[in-house]
Every structure is written in C-alpha cells, then in structure tokens.
C-alpha cells in the first residue's frame, strides 16, 4: 500500500514541478506578436500588387494564417507556394489562375516624352518607385520597382510599359541537368555511349 502511495506521491510531485516549470517558461519566454504571420509575410514577394485580393502582402499573410489558400500570389509563383507549403506543412497546390498567372520579372518604364506629369502613377505606386512632380516628366527607379503593374492603368496617356528584365551575364543562373529519365536508360555498362564516341 505504502509503495502505491509513494508512487502516486512522486508522480504528483513531479507533475507539479514540471507544471510550474512550464508555466514559468510560458511567462519568461513569451513570444510577442504573431510569429507565424511574420514568417509567412517574409516568404511573400512583397510586391504589394493586391492580386491576391488583399491590400498588400501582409494582409494576405494574415489571411493565410487564418486559413486562406496559399496559392493566390501570382508574383511569387510556384516557388512561393512551395515555400509556404513547407512552412505550413500543407500540400503545395498549383497557382490559382483566378488571381493571375506567373509572369517573368518585369519593371515599369515610362516613355518619358509622352508623360504629361499628372502624378497619377506616383499615387498608385506602393513602393514609391516613381520619381516626378506635377507637370514634370516622371521616371521609374528600376531598382525599386517591384513590377506590380499598379501604375499602368492610372496613366491617362498610356505611357507606362511593363518591360521584362532580361537575363544578363551577372544574373544568369545554371540550368538543372536533365536527370536520369531524360537521357537514356542504358543501365548496363557496355551500353554506355562513351565507347561509341571513337
């Protein structure tokens, strides 16, 4: 009988100790803010284009945290969906076509001699990437432009073009090799084509 009581006593004591410890840790190491929203936000491309149906990337991050689908961001494309899927441990799904399609990276370019200086595009640009003043020619700071498209529609004289950023030698990246399936299935050593080359 005594052993049983002793065992119970020890267990109770242990649970109290660990409970207290956990409680303390909860207070001591409390995380401020909503870390998951921050993490999601960090994965989104921050184009702030609103194609996801939210007024910016962070609101969409909040919506994802609240259960919205992860495939509503066209600028991020499949890579972002994959990253979000990894983070949230859900399945990566293809991009939702209703919100747009993934396009190559682009920047806005203003045909400067046609600009009438109405400043409408400045007001539309979410990242302040356009430089200009009323009745003056406007221009886009290409390095700051996220290619969100938002300045194109407001322009009354249609002088803003979205131009694809071509690949330069500096931004070029190596292709992935084709892999096994793409080549042949010569599994036997004597089938290898190295010998044929003579």
């Amino acid at each position, binding site marked *: 009988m005594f052993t049983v009581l002793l065992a119970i006593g020890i267990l109770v004591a242990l649970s109290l100790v660990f409970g207290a410890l956990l409680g303390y840790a909860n207070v001591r190491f409390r995380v401020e803010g909503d870390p998951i929203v921050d993490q999601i*936000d*960090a994965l*989104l*491309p*921050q*184009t*702030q284009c609103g194609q996801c149906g939210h007024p*910016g*990337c962070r609101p969409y991050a909040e919506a994802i945290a609240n259960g919205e689908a992860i495939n509503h961001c066209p600028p991020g494309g499949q*890579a972002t969906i*994959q990253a979000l899927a990894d983070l949230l441990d859900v399945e990566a799904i293809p991009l939702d076509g209703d919100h747009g399609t993934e396009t190559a990276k682009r920047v806005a370019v203003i045909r400067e001699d*046609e600009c*009438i200086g109405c400043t409408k595009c400045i007001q539309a640009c*979410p*990242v*302040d*990437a356009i430089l200009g003043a009323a009745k003056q020619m406007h221009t886009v700071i290409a390095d*700051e432009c*996220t290619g969100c498209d938002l300045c194109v529609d407001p322009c*009354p*004289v*249609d002088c803003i073009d979205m131009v694809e950023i071509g*690949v*330069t*030698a*500096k*931004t*070029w*990246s*190596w*292709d*992935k*090799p*084709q*892999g*096994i399936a793409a*080549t*042949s299935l*010569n*599994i036997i050593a004597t089938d*290898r*084509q*190295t010998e044929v*080359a*003579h």
Partner: protein
Amino acid sequence: MQATKIYSFHGGIHPEENKAQSLRLPLGRPSLPSELILPLGQHIGQSSRPLVKVGDKVLKGETIAINNGFLSSFLHASTSGTISAIEERLIAHPSGLSDLCIILAPDGQDTWTTLEPLNDWQTLSKTDVLAYLSEMGIVGMGGAGFPTQVKLQGAHKKPLSHFIINAAECEPYITADDMLMREKALELILGIEILQHLVEADKVVIGIEDNKPAAIDALTSMIKQRDSKVQVAVVPTKYPSGGEKQLIQLLTGKEVPSGQHPADIGILCHNVGTCVAVYDAITFGKPLISRFTTLTGDALKAPQNVEVLLGTPVSHLLEYADSEPKKLSRLIMGGPMMGFTLNSAAVPIVKTSNCILAASKKELPPPAPEQACIRCGMCEQACPASLLPQQLLWFSKSQEFEKAEHHNLFDCIECGACSYVCPSSIPLVQYYRHSKSSIREAREATVKSDLAKQRFEARKARQDAEAAEKEAKRLARQKATPSKAAEKKKAAPAKAAPTVAAAPAATDESKKLKVDLAIGKSKLKKLQKQLLEAQENEHLEEISNLQLQVTEQEKAVALLEEQLAKTAEAAPTAAEAKVPKPAPAPVNDDIKKAKIDLAIAKAAVKKVEKALKKAEEIQAPEIEAIRQQLKEAQQRADELENALVNPATTIPKTETTAQAAPSSVDADMTKKRKIDLAIAKAGVKKAEKNIQLLKEQGKNESEIEASEWPKKLIEAQEKLAVLEAEDTTDTVAKSQAKAEPEMDLANQIKKEKIAVALAKAQINKLNKRLESAPEDADKINQDIAATEQRLQRAEALLATLIHSQTNTQENR
C-alpha cells in the same frame, strides 16, 4: 634555403595531363586582329564605366574605362586605334550571353601612351601603391578575376604568416603559367618582392607541381642569383592542388575554415601571372593589357602558348594556331575540368582566360548519360574539399537547398573531381552550380522583397501621418467656425481671464475626445468593410445586422464629433481673445467649411452609388431604397455646391481688391465646370463598366438594351461632349479676350496637346478592346467614332491655337 615541408589534402584525382602538346613550340605572339573586343566586366564585381566615346582615338595603354565602386577595376586600350563602338557583344561566359564591350579598331601603329612607372614604390605609402595597382587594372589572373588591390587590402586584417604564390597549375592541358615562369622568371621574382614589400609576410613560398621541371629550374636559379628569400615548394602532381585552399593546405597544413578567406588565417595567395603584371605596372607603368594563354587541343595543328592582347577574338587565335574546323567538336575556355564550353569563337580573351581548348570529339567525348547514384562513395573519396558529394547531389536534385547549404555546398570549389570519378556519370558539378545559383537568386529576391517591404511600410506610415494631419486640420477648422459664432453671441465678456485659464483644460478634453473619435472612426471603417464583404458574398442576414451596426457606429462618431466641436469652442475662444483675427477670416472659413461639406456629401453620393451597383449585381431587394438614398445624397451635394458657388461670389471681399473679385468668380466657374466635367466623365465610365458587367454576366444584347445603362451611357457621353465643348470654347474665348494672351495660349496649347494625347490613348485602348471582344464591335466602333470626333475637334482647336500663337508672335 631550407626545404618547405609539404602536407597533403584529402581526395584529389590524377587525370591525364596532356600538357606536353602546348609546350613543343616556343611562346607565340599573334598579330593584331582587325578589332579588339574589351568587355567592361572582366573581373568580379561591378562592370567598369567607359571613359571614351565612339570615334575617340586612343593610344596603347590609355585608360578607357574606370572602376565603378569598390569591387571593380580599370580597363585599358590594348593597342592604339579608334573606338569603333560601345555595344553588346558575346562574351566569354558559361551563359553564352552578351555584355557591354568597348570595340577598338587598331591603327596598326601600336603606339604607347606616355607611361608613368611608380619608381618610388618603396618610399610611397602602401595605400598609394594599392591605388596605383587598381588604376593599372590588375586583377587576379588565375581564377575569378578578383581585383588585386582589394585582395591586398584584405590581407591587412591580420599579420600574414604566409604569402603563397600559386604556380601549381594543376588542370590538364594548361601550361600558360609554366611558360610564363620560363620566360619571365626574373620579372616574377621582382613582382613577388614588390608584393612582399606591400604585405610583409613571414614566409614567401612559390607552390609548384613537380611536373614543371624547367620552370622549377628557372625559378631556383633566379632566386639563387638574386639571393632572394623566396622559397620554392615543389608539390606532387595531383588535381586540384592549384585550388587556393588546397595549395594552402599543402604548404602550411592549415585548413581555411568554411565560409572564411585565406586572409582570415593570415595567408595570402596570388597567381604568378598577377605578380608579373604587378611588376610590369610598377616598373614600366604598363597596365594589364596582355596575358599568357595556352592554345591547345587536338583540333589545333600548332598548339602553343601565346602572349595575347586582351580583347583578341578567340577565332583570331584559332586561325593563328592553325585550327582544323572539321576536327573541332568542342571549344572550351579554361581547362577540361573547370572550363566552360564556348558556343561561338567570336568571344574575346579577357584578363582571366588562361586557356583555349579546341578539342576533337575523341579527346572530349560527349558525356555519357546520367544514371542513378549507386552510393559507391567514390566521389567522397575524391572531393578535395572533404564534402559529401552524393549527399549534396541528393539535396540538389530534390531542391532542398537549405540542407545542401548545411552540408557546406558553398565550400565546393566546382573542381569536377567528383564528376570525374563517378561511375554513374552523374554531372555532379552541374547540379551544384544550379543549386548555388538558385540559392543566390533566392537571397537576392529576399533582399529585394525586404527593400520593397521597407519602402511600402515607409509609404504607409507617411500616408497615415498625412491623413492624420489633414484630419487634425479639419477638426481645427470645424471647431473654429462654430466657436466664432458662439463668440459673437456671447460677446465681449468672454474675453475675461478665466476663459484663458480654462483653455488648457479644454484642450486636454478635446484630445481625449479626438482619440475616442479616431477609435470610433476606425471601428466604423472596419464595420463598413465587413458590410461590403458580406454584400459581396451575399450573406443577407449578416448584411442587415451589419448595416444596423454601421448606422449605430456612425451615430456614435457624429456624437463624438459634435462633442469635440463643443469642447473645442473654449480653446479657440481663448486664443481669439489674445490674437484677434482679421474680419474676413470667418467668411473664408465658411467657404472652406462648405467646401468640405460638399466633399463629404459627394463622397456619400459615391458610396451610395457603389452600394447601388453592388445591389444591382446581386439583384438585392433593397435597390429601390438605395436609389432613393442616392437621389437624396445627390440633391444634397448639388445644394451644397450651389450654396458654395453663390455665397462665394456674393461675399464682400474686404481685403481683396474689386478687380480681383471677378477673376475669382471666373475661377470658381471654371472649377465648377471642371467638377461637372469630371462627374460626367465618371458617369460615362460607370455606365460603360456596368454594361461590361452585364455582358460578363452573360446577358444578351436585348437584355442589355432593356436595362437603362446604354441610355445612360449615351446621355452621359452627350453631356460630357457638351461640357467639353463649353469648356474649350469658353477658355478659348477667355484666352482671346485676355490682354496678355501668349502665356495662356501656350498653356492652352499644352492642354490641347494633352487632350489630343488622351483621345489618342483612348482610341488605342478601344481598338485593343475591339480586338479582344469582337462581339461588341458595334458599340466599340461607335465609341471609337465619338472619340475620333473628339480628337479631331481637339486637333482643330490645337491648330487654330498654334496659328493664333504664331500670329500674335508675328504681330509683335
């Protein structure tokens, strides 16, 4: 001279050397090509900035491009001649892409510019010497083209234990450094001595593979002759002993920790070519304009080493070495292990091109097909960086880049030893390169998105601040107006001291109220948003509920605003007491207030319109009610506008002169007209949108006709046209009536030009729409016709305007 102890490094392979071919002939000096192509990015870091223009005449050795930032370099003309172009040309790069190049057409004279050697380098400060080296365009000639002065600066972080000169040249086929040491042993030793003077290392060692006996002899005898402290360390031949980290390990037994540079452990490494270039620059003032390059491969009849001017096209060199185009199957820049295939022989030799390998098919057969990894571990045995290549392959294939990084992917020197030994012929290095560039891309994207986020947030903060400021001003005005009225009623006694004392208290209260108000407003906004969402999603129960809440919240906000206005009375009264304002102020305030009210009313109209549209979309039953609301709101807006226009004109202006008054009436008129115009335009737009919407919903033409939108559209368009006509005729009349028409004319012309541009843009847009939606061709064609008319009108007007402008100018 005591022998240096030689350590060893993990892995390594022994591929066929194939070095003898290119050493049979003596050093060659190819003739001048017909043009030299000098890429602006021959080094790591930012591309240089061109200093010359097309058509400029330059002399040999003249600076033609300067550095563009810290990690960049200078570029010099390799011979005398004319700059024929600055344009994109194919460059020697694995991507096969083009980059900006300066094209130099040689004049055949090869005249040197005046050279300014740095004879007093021993007495000058080291910074000056480094700056000089940078101006001479010297970069690392062994590998990536790292600007030499940057590397030397980095070496000052820590006292150096070793200064290692890399003469290992471990890669098969390449013998350029070997030839350089044979030809220029003295220059090399002198160059090393200059660099040693700059870095002051404890030990200076030349690391050289034992397969270059002639070079070793040349060096040792030269060292003996000069009684130099430089040591020669002969290392056994094993690929890749010429890798920087591998050579360091061979000579010092130390490993460069992952992610660090040799300078971090007190070691500096330079290529022999760089040392000779430093010597040439300091002693003769010659910038880096030529280099030793190996031309080799079975497809060349005369493989040899050449001293070649930078910018010489590879095709010129192939011709020089008697290439057999039939045999040539693959052209490689660099060696067979670490080089890359060239798709075109038009690319030029740059500062880092150490070898051109023109290989026959037999020499370099196409790679065998890749097969599955059998986990044999041979790659691990061969890897000189002690990595786990099969693991890296696994992660690269499955795109698990994070894990690849944890397995030190970035320590891979891309030597190709693993691919060489792999029995499954897996192109391992290609996988690593792909992963590395993907990771790099992702990092850049993160940097960019962080920047965008920062800017977005900064903008939002700014906008919020602006809105808050506006709001505060609005409130201030609001409380100013009633307070003055109150003041008049209460008359003079209020001016007494107690009011002044009460002022701070009042401000406190108003502050609190303001906060409450802000909170209330934000709540209201939220509710409105929810309402909108509910409407979109057709949650009818929610809609009515939310609407109730919205009205309540609106009431609360209104109440708060009223209170705020009341409490605020006291404070401005006090202020008034101290600083009596000029009489006309309240009148102006009245106008302002009226204007604000008008704006608010208009906003209300807009809101109701929006709601109406929504309701129509979902065929909600409350359409009629909303329409009624809209009408009322519109009425109110109209009333307000009238009120604004009339009193504004009748208000006695005490300060402004009598002459000024009419002009202000004028201005008001035009303003009003402009507003009308804008409203009309918005009406047209709205009607169009609705028609579009109906179409999208699949309604057929007759249904659309039945709805009132097309009618409305036409009405709105007519109204717009009338207004525009009025506007233009009016302004033209005015501008003609004006005493000083010229300025106005100019403005007018500008405006008309804009109108023309606008019309043109619209026609463009319509045409585009016509293409995409041929079923509405009729309507769109009508639109186009209307716009074209407008365009013609505008153009005609523009013509008359310009005509009258020239006339007035002539008259003068």
